[in-house]
């Protein structure tokens, strides 16, 4: 029951009077209008399900983890969701380490009610074996800096974490289908949590017996306020939870008015959360595509670059070198192509324009499309490429695909198409760049004068007539 610690920061009477008087004229000490939120920033961490929120000076982090547990007896088909809060002592001098104090417990329970009772997270989908094994989702909220209005910031962090969290996929196996196999993320893609709607908490502070109401109080305003009310609403206008734990008494009409304002704010904030989560998911998807879509020629040594993780499946495709396989890989790469223009230099990819069966493995890996980042790139014409290859094709012995000679082969193959391109890097990169040359695109390398031009011309000329 220690609600007031000896080292609590107390406000001076002057500061209190100043804030109250300013509020009477509708001025807030940080310059905001009464119903403005502070600047909101949402960032995501390395692990899935970790989110960091800055709301003005308030800094909160959320971590979402999952574990397999036995369900509650009275709910055998439901997973569980639990919220744990930690008020780090570095956030505020009045936070003590150890057991959570009253405000920590209140914060945890308010967020918990908003998420659980309104059924924002679908718990039935977390059931693996009815009555035996369900997923228990645990959200840990760490308060790192108390700049006021912890509830709103922590709520946003928890939502951002839950939206980006992925749980491993599991299937039933074993003799009688009673064993649960959890698939690691490399094997099977982890799954999202099903979130039906986003309950957003909006906190109001009341001063001087209702003469002023503000949204999103700062630390200073919280020390002066007479009462506080947190309304949790979603963007559909449903009220998910309200917490007004005593404090200054207000009229019923004021409550309804606050709820309407909160509905508008909730819509704006949930849009922002969704936008940030979407951009995070896109970035993540990009990383994944890089990993899976590029087939590797073992001979090439492109793997030396270490940019790609190759499965044996990819190799198999490469080795088989049938038109069918080429098609398949192309399709995988299609989406990757537009997004991975940066990697053009270092990876070799298929283009859907290169439809021909090539006896030459080099030419299979090549980008024909225009790069998305270079406004002047045009992409190579597959027909002319085919023609040039046909003329050279028969003269390409397979062993010339060895990495050290890779680039030479390349350069021979596409002398006409290749603009001067400089490649001072290692050979795997060279071959990649020469592939790029074949595209007819101008890269940044074009702008740089090459030392290697002469050597290449020599080799080109020497092997030309052969």
């Amino acid at each position, binding site marked *: 029951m220690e609600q007031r610690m000896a080292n609590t920061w107390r406000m001076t009477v002057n500061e209190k009077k100043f804030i109250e008087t300013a509020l009477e004229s509708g001025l807030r000490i940080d310059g905001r209008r009464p119903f403005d939120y502070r600047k909101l920033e949402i960032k995501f961490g390395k692990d899935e399900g970790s989110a960091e929120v800055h709301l003005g000076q308030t800094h909160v982090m959320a971590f979402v983890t999952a574990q397999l547990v036995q369900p509650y007896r009275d709910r055998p088909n439901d997973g569980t969701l639990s919220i744990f809060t930690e008020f780090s002592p570095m956030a505020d001098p009045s936070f003590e380490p150890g057991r959570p104090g009253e405000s920590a*417990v*209140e914060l945890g329970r308010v967020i918990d009610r908003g998420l659980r009772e309104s059924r924002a997270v679908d718990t039935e989908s977390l059931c693996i074996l009815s009555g035996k094994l369900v997923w228990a989702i645990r959200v840990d909220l760490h308060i790192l800096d108390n700049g006021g209005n912890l509830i709103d910031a922590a709520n946003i962090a928890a939502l951002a974490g839950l939206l980006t969290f992925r749980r491993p996929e599991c299937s039933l196996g074993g003799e009688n289908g009673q064993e649960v196999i959890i698939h690691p993320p490399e094997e099977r893609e982890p799954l999202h949590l099903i979130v039906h709607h986003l309950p957003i908490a909006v906190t109001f502070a009341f001063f001087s017996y209702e003469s002023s109401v503000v949204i999103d109080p700062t630390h200073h305003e919280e020390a002066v306020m007479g009462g506080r009310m947190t309304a949790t609403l979603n963007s559909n*206008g*449903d009220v998910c939870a309200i917490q007004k734990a*005593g404090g200054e008494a207000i*009229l019923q009409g004021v409550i309804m008015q606050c709820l309407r304002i909160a509905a508008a704010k909730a819509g704006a904030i949930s849009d922002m959360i969704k936008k940030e989560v979407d951009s995070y998911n896109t970035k993540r998807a990009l990383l994944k595509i890089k990993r899976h879509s590029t087939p590797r020629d073992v001979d090439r040594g492109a793997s030396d670059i270490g940019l790609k993780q190759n499965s044996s499946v990819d190799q198999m495709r490469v080795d088989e070198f049938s038109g069918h396989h080429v098609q398949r890989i192309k399709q995988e790469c299609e989406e990757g192509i537009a997004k991975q223009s940066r990697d053009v230099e270092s990876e070799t990819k298929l283009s859907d324009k290169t439809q021909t069966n090539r006896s030459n493995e080099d030419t299979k890996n090549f980008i024909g499309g225009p790069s998305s980042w270079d406004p002047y790139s045009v992409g190579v014409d597959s027909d002319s490429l085919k023609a040039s290859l046909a003329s050279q094709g028969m003269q390409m012995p397979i062993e010339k695909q060895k990495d050290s000679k890779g680039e030479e082969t390349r350069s021979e193959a596409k002398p006409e198409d290749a603009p001067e391109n400089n490649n001072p890097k290692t050979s795997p990169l060279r071959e990649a760049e020469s592939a790029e040359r074949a595209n007819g695109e101008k890269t940044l390398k074009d702008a740089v004068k090459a030392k290697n031009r002469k050597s290449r011309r020599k080799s080109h000329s020497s092997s030309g007539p052969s």
Partner: protein
Amino acid sequence: MSSKETWMRQIRAEIGVVAKADGSAMFEMGNTKVVAAVYGPREVQNRSQQLNANALVRCEYTMANFSTGDRMRKLKGDRRSTEISLVIRQTMEECILTNLMPRSQIDIFVQVVQADGGTLSACINAATLALANAGIPMRDIVTSCSAGYLNSTPLLDLNYIEDSAGGADVTLGIMPKLDKVTLLQMDAKLSLDTFENVMQLAIEGCKAVADYIREILLENTKQLQYRRGT
């Protein structure tokens, strides 16, 4: 309000149940039974917490092991109890004229003897009576009632079964003379209009409780007058 959905449960209250305390009361709402005891104003036990301008209000909410169907262990100090203690304390703090008793301490202890839904409301009503019994100056009494929404009907004063059915549960505490809301807790989803109806219903319930409480207090005062021989 003639339809059964808008009826409250049977209320019963008794003052002075804990003889040692400065003020005490027992409050029943249907099967929910709660005992409150108030000690104060007295000297602050923990000097570091002393407030120079106001009285320090402390509150502790506990549920007896036998109060619900299954016997519970370690109920004191768990998160739900901590939150409810905080809520009751802040609600009562608002109505007590703390500036009249600086450097003192007022303790409110609330114990749930039988739990059947609406324990928070019953606790606040019991605390109000106990504070009045202790003679602590208050701005106004605080009365509380809960209301819910099940099967598209607003219901007043939910019991445990109705509460766990998954519909909304709104607990409201008002100061009836001032007609202002001091406590408002709500969970589960409701649209804004439905919520307004449910809140309105809860306010009516609170006013009904307030009438009853005033009756009880009046009765008690008459008894005291009689015993004094005036």
